[in-house]
């Protein structure tokens, strides 16, 4: 049954080579933690991706309850964390997952740096990876405002003040982020949109580029 459906689709779209290429490519010994325990450092990239998937999923589920509005944002976060079953876990996944992504990504970056894996021909992949790093930091920054507690409010204020110190463009950047003159209703919806649509969109595009390049160029050889 499954097989005949698959064959029917495969005949029309020839999808087998797509996944076969991913599934069957040989993974060399030097990155395999089963052969060399120290090769676990090569797992950080995959773990970053795994936690990112958890972040995307838990974020999707959180928006079922969350409202980006200064009057109700805090109330809805409070409600979903304390009144909804498993709310503490789902919000915890998203909150602590953010830190974990940063940690994993940091370790992954260090691994790539210290094994010199960014050298030719993999320069572009390093640059894309750094862009992913910045997008993640941006996600962390915009996500912090959303619960609308004191920490959210003041951390955002400080962050935007830093952006505002840029010459010439600074005030415009600040106005753009604030959506007005104060940290308020317009700031919150703006940050919500950036956090939920713009940055994740960019992130997914960058991740795709990252993975395609890894597949094209393969893993860097043993040292």
């Amino acid at each position, binding site marked *: 049954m499954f097989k005949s459906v698959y064959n029917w689709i495969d005949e029309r779209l020839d999808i087998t080579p797509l996944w076969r290429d991913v599934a069957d490519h040989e993974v060399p010994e030097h990155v395999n933690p089963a052969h060399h325990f120290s090769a676990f450092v090569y797992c950080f990239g995959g773990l970053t991706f795994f936690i990112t998937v958890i972040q995307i999923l838990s974020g999707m589920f959180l928006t079922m309850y969350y409202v980006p509005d200064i009057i109700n944002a805090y109330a809805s976060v*409070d409600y979903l*964390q304390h009144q909804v079953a498993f709310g503490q876990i789902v919000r915890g996944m998203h909150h602590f997952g953010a830190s974990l992504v940063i940690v994993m990504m940091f370790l992954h970056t260090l691994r790539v740096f210290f094994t010199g894996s960014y050298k030719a021909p993999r*320069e572009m992949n390093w640059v894309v990876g750094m862009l992913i790093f910045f997008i993640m930091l941006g996600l962390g920054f915009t996500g912090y405002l959303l619960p609308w507690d*004191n920490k959210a409010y003041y951390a955002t204020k400080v962050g935007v003040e830093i952006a505002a110190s840029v010459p010439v463009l600074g005030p415009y950047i600040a106005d753009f982020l604030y959506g007005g003159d*104060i940290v308020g209703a317009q700031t919150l919806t703006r940050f919500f949109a950036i956090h939920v649509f713009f940055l994740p969109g960019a992130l997914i595009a960058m991740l795709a580029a990252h993975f395609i390049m890894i597949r094209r160029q393969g893993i860097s050889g043993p040292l």
Partner: protein
Amino acid sequence: MAHGHKSNEKVVYVGDSRVKRSNHPNIPPDYTSFPGKSEAFIPNFLLKEWMVGCVVLVGFLVWTIAEPAPLGYPADPTNAAFIPMPDWYFLFLYQFLKYPYVSQDYILLGTLGVPGVMFGALMLAPFLDTGKERRFYRRPIASSLMFLSLIACIYLTIVSWDHYQHTLEANGQIPEHHEREEKAREAAEAGEERPNYTKPAPVASLVDADDPAMEIAKQANCVSCHAADLKGQGSVPALTGIGDRLDKDQLVDVITNGRGGMPQFKDQLSAEEIDQLATWLSKQKVAAE
């Protein structure tokens, strides 16, 4: 895969589409007989990677179950006591901007200059470190710069966190989200409802507003600090609903002798007037509505 068509082989398409008709059988190759220790990505290698993933996931879930995600009190732009702290991964930058030569007149150097150069260099690392050598100890400049930046970031983060802890201690504060959790726990233990910070507090209105004591309040200039409707202003507390917080004797004491920023009124008002005023104020209860 079936991509290796010889150039003279005729390519057959499915229908009038551009999809090549393939004749590869859908049987996965068996790697058991392959020489060497390299292995297929799926299932062999991914299985190992996901064993690590499982350990991380279980640890992560335990963490989320054990530790509720922090949530402070609702944002209050007038809250001056709150010490804003960014998330831990921004602390190094936060701390960095406190130093001279990267703040005040040089703020630009701190926000744009140094971080710009650092992150720019990090981003362009492959173009700056172009040697063939990959081992970190064979490229001492790149590695030592990275070690230095790492140590600097860790140092800045720790200093920042220490400073925060010291400030908390000096001010006798505990972080909001801890205080909030603590209160929720106490309420649960006492069998009460969890404190709700989003519900607007019941608005107290003036009870017996035409009582003669109101005249005393006006003459004694209570209204100049506590506002004309006695609802308070700035840091001066409201007198509406004061009866819930203080009883009559306490009110007499506060009016007579003052308290905190409040001056004493024993010279301006007679004992009877104070008594009359306190009696009236002690009736100011929210529940009295």
